């Protein structure tokens, strides 16, 4: 990390007085926005029982929940990339009837309360849902179920990010590749996907962050089973009734992990514009 994003920004825009370039009202409202975002985090930091944090966190339950969280959120990202990237390409490059509807369906989990997503998952993949009726087994209350819940809420971030980038992309390169004799699959894999890579990484990062924080759909569909579906957010929900200090300590862990990964990804893999 030789240069920070701030340094680059400074190099490109006049540093002298940025507020002179924007109406004062805009800057003031941005300040309000920042305060709204920062106050809860500051509250958490002042609430934190700093001296007791090591003992509060040094339990098997924390490690188990952390493991479940990592397995579930990373699996959800892998799954999202595997099926979300092709979906984004279909939405951006193909014209077919019902495309507007499909695009709406893709965005639905962004708007739906996660608990509703959980209920929908039960109806679809639960023991007594469509899948259960057909096969006699459901995915509810399993780690796979937790991954499914996280994927459903996280994948739209990836799809929308990639689709947006693809629609603004220059089709020239693919045309050149075609003129040089590349087949459709080679063209897609060697030209289109690499060109979309920044948006895939950015979308996957957002999707991962969303998956890590997922709570409502998970507890509704996958339950709160230690070592199986009890992720860190679910562990926090249990701790809050038993030991609020531990809940705050766990929240700090989530905050730290999320910040670390977001910062790392920003600096290393997301190209700056």
């Amino acid at each position, binding site marked *: 990390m030789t240069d920070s994003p701030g340094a680059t920004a400074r190099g490109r825009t006049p540093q002298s007085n940025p507020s002179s370039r924007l*109406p*004062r*009202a*805009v800057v*003031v*409202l941005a300040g*309000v926005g920042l305060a709204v975002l920062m106050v809860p985090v500051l509250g958490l930091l002042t609430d934190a029982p700093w001296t007791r944090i090591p003992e509060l966190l040094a339990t098997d339950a924390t490690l188990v929940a952390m493991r479940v969280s990592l397995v579930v959120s990373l699996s959800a990202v892998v799954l999202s990339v595997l099926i979300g990237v092709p979906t984004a390409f279909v939405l951006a490059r193909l014209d077919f009837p019902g495309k507007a509807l499909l695009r709406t369906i893709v965005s639905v989990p962004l708007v739906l309360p996660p608990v509703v997503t959980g209920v929908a998952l*039960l109806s679809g993949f*639960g*023991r*007594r849902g469509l899948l*259960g009726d057909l096969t*006699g*087994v*459901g995915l*509810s*209350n399993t780690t796979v179920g937790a991954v499914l819940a996280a994927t459903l809420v996280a994948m739209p971030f990836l799809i929308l990010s990639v689709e947006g980038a693809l629609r603004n992309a220059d089709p020239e390169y693919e045309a050149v590749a075609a003129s040089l004799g590349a087949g459709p699959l080679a063209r897609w894999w060697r030209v289109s996907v690499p060109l979309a890579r920044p948006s895939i990484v950015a979308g996957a990062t957002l999707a991962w962050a969303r998956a890590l924080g997922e709570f409502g759909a998970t*507890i509704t569909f996958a*339950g*709160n*089973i*230690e070592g*199986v*579906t*009890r992720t860190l957010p679910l562990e926090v*929900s*249990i701790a*809050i*009734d*038993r*030991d*609020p200090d531990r809940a705050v300590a766990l929240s700090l862990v989530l905050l730290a992990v999320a910040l670390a990964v977001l910062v790392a990804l920003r600096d290393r893999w997301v190209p700056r514009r």
Partner: protein
Amino acid sequence: MPSRTILAAAFAAVAAIASACGGTDDESVIDVYAASSLTDAFTELEAAFEAANPEFDVRLNLAGSNALQRQILDGADAEVFAPADTALLDAVVPAGAPVSTYATNTLTLVVPVGSGPGEPVTAVADLGRAGVLVARCAPGVPCGDATEQWLTAGGQQLGRTSDESNVRAVLSKVRRGEADAGFVYRTDALAAADEVTEIPLQPTVVTTYGVGAVDPEHAGAEAFVTFIEGPTAAVILDELGFERTP
């Protein structure tokens, strides 16, 4: 648009949000914070109370007892608190304010009606069997503590459990057949009698419900607490399967 207009609009919006969140000083509204196991009871009690006292409007906040207590301790504008454990009243009801222990409830086991994927649970002894998923309240919330008390007294082990934050979440898991069994109160079992079968527990674990005026200054708070102790409420509570305190 001049920036002053935008600013004024923004401040107006912030002020509107702030006043909406701050609750009301309206004396006709009684904010009642009640445990999830009281969902059906207090919904009916609300209607009966408002019919008898049209000058008041009861506003229910239903959630796990601990979550509600936390909200009140954090300064939520509650007038009445009705947790599933009388001990939770102590921290939030001022000394001398009206308090009543008005009903009790018994912990019970419910299993889903109809076939599930595995061998159904038919007796307490099945609870520890491999592959059985038991929904229960998390330790620390009243129904979870009651469950813990029974497990200790009965010497019963559980296999895999899904720990829920309130009793209605447990009931919902069993109703949908997602859990093979669940620890709830008798009244919850009765409320879902079409979908769950009850397996009574021995020894019995009894929970005592208390209700208290968090804000004794509020005219409606005392009226509501008194109503809960009264004969009209007794009929409603009886019908739902609550036991009356002696």
